[in-house]
């Protein structure tokens, strides 16, 4: 894909939490791009830095977190270092954010319509008529009756609140919508309906989506590319379907095998032994080696880079030199 298609270029991005004792690096040298209209999924466990990365891309970090290095180029402009005033020209108009908990993201003492009005007035001087028309339009887009513009957040169900958050993100038809686990507070049925809706809106309006989740299976049918994070770094980055069919990194492989399925034979699963690392005490060498069943001596000493393998990027020494069995050929990790 040529650069003209790339809407977002993240280069060498590192984020530190500046703490009294020492700094903790939550995101370490992360680089990726997002194409116009692309759906990028970011998955990882709690504490892997996925939400911090998202906040850094949206320039929403607050102390003690700060961007230590790298750039975030959105439609050609580096957002890192811009003032709030300069950022506000971009925010919401070109790039909007949907947070995990709509209950906390929406203002509880204002009606949905009033909050839409605030957002619209922050970027121009629309007439009352224009505000009413656009607000009703976006509500219909997400399948909510516009009468609910008069409702307050507590009067809506969890699914409707999350939908109205998405409606709000659609007010200016942005080029990029950043979503941080928008469905995790919902039940499976509502969750699925919302995913289908997001995908439909995306196909209609052509915006790009960065979707962060801890649940890989949720986005398996929706994202174009998948980025797997572990301990602040990218472990694997590639086409979603390919990663599901033949994960290259032992961690990705382990994650995929940690999900029981409702289809097929009931097989015993093992999950991934051990616990995700504390970012203040990162293991030497490959950060996954203490939990990795394939780790050999050099994994404990040499920190691997992201290597291109079969069209994907993977951070694994043994995958790079071809000494690791292929997931689709050699059976699996836990069986």
């Amino acid at each position, binding site marked *: 894909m040529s650069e003209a298609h790339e809407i977002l270029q993240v280069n060498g991005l590192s984020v530190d939490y500046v703490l009294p004792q020492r700094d903790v690096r939550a995101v370490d040298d992360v680089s990726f791009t997002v194409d116009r209209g692309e759906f990028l999924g970011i998955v990882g466990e709690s504490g892997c830095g996925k939400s911090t990365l998202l906040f850094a891309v949206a320039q929403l970090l607050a102390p003690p977190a700060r961007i230590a290095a790298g750039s975030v180029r959105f439609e050609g402009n580096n957002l890192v270092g811009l003032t709030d005033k300069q950022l506000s020209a971009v925010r919401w108009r070109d790039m909007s954010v949907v947070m995990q908990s709509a209950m906390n993201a929406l203002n509880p003492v204002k009606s949905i319509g009033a909050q839409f009005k605030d957002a619209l007035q922050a970027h121009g001087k629309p007439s009352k008529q224009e505000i009413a028309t656009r607000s009703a339009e976006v509500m219909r887009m997400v399948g909510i009756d516009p009468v609910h513009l008069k409702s307050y957040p507590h009067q809506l169900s969890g699914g409707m609140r999350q939908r109205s958050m998405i409606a709000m993100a659609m007010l200016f038809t942005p080029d990029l919508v950043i979503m941080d686990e928008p469905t995790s507070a919902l039940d499976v049925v509502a*969750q699925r309906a919302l995913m289908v809706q997001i995908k439909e809106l995306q196909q209609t309006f052509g915006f790009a989506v960065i979707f962060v989740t801890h649940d890989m299976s949720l986005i398996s049918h929706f994202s174009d590319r998948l980025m797997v994070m572990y301990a602040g770094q990218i472990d694997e980055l590639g086409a979603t379907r390919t990663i599901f069919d033949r994960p290259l990194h032992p961690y990705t492989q382990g994650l995929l095998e940690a999900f029981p399925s409702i289809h097929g034979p009931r097989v015993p*699963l093992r999950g991934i032994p051990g616990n995700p690392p504390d970012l203040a005490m990162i293991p030497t060498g490959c950060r996954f080696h203490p939990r990795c069943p394939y780790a050999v001596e050099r994994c404990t000493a040499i920190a691997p880079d992201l290597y291109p393998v079969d069209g994907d990027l993977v951070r694994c020494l043994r995958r790079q030199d071809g000494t690791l069995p292929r997931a689709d050929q050699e059976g699996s990790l836990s069986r």
Partner: protein
Amino acid sequence: MSELLRTEHLTRHFKIGGMLSRRTLHAVDDVSFSIGEREIVALAGESGSGKSTIARVLARVYKPTSGEIYFEGKPLSAIRSRRDGLRYSSLVPMVFQDPFASINPVFRVQHGVLRILKLHRPELPAKKRLDEAARVFGVVGLGADMLQRFPYELSGGQRQRVGFAQALAMRPKLILADEPVSMLDVSIRIGLLNLMAKLRDEEGVSILYITHDIASARYVADRLIVMYAGQIAESGPIEDVLTIPKHPYTQLLLSAVPDPMAPLSQVSDQGEPPKVVDPTPGCRFRWRCPLAIEKCSAVTPVLAELRPGHEAACHVAQTGAEVRAFAS
């Protein structure tokens, strides 16, 4: 399999609203089920379907509005003395959803276990308590050195194991586990599910596994009870319910479970479970059900056995017709 616990027409209502708008929320309505010995029963449903209320009624946190619970054949309403109450609590302990909120942060981990041993197993001499605490920690896969740690030193998975160790210290017959893995990372969930299976197989404990995650229920449970709006929609041996779901709601639920290895199902349903306030008779799923017939809005369906051990509360399924409301 002999029966351990049975509920009969268990009902729990809550009064809501102010003085002038007295209304009744039917959190659990006419629920009858049983749990056998050495059995894991999964109780699944959307939030608000009443599954946590059932756990709390079984734990005697709430009194049932009507209906009865029998434990080892004896009705719970007959429990009068504090001693009998304590005895029941130790036989039927709870494990909570949030491992970060359910352990006292200012004490070492051993504190909770030792308190339980002192309170619920007074026959155990004080000197033996620490040994017993180490034993239950061993069963749940924690080293004895963990006893001296503070909760903040433990990961979420380890804390949840402490929760199970505390329950186990009471020598329980039935553990009420309310969403015990939903707050844990995917890579360590399986370890806890395997622990639940181990407690059943090796310690002979039954577990009521309350969850919204059908796939994890299938992984450990023997039977599945699907709740909808305070009532049981369907129950039966878990493989039967999952392969031949009889209730349209179960079919909807199964079609929505994300599965990377299966093609995306084309079900579209934007409905939501109703708030069951002062309900009128009729099936509570009828507004979302593509198969609803006239009878569904007039008569509340009750559970009927359609195949051995497999029950569903659906008028359409009970006519013997094949129910295919939502393909999964």
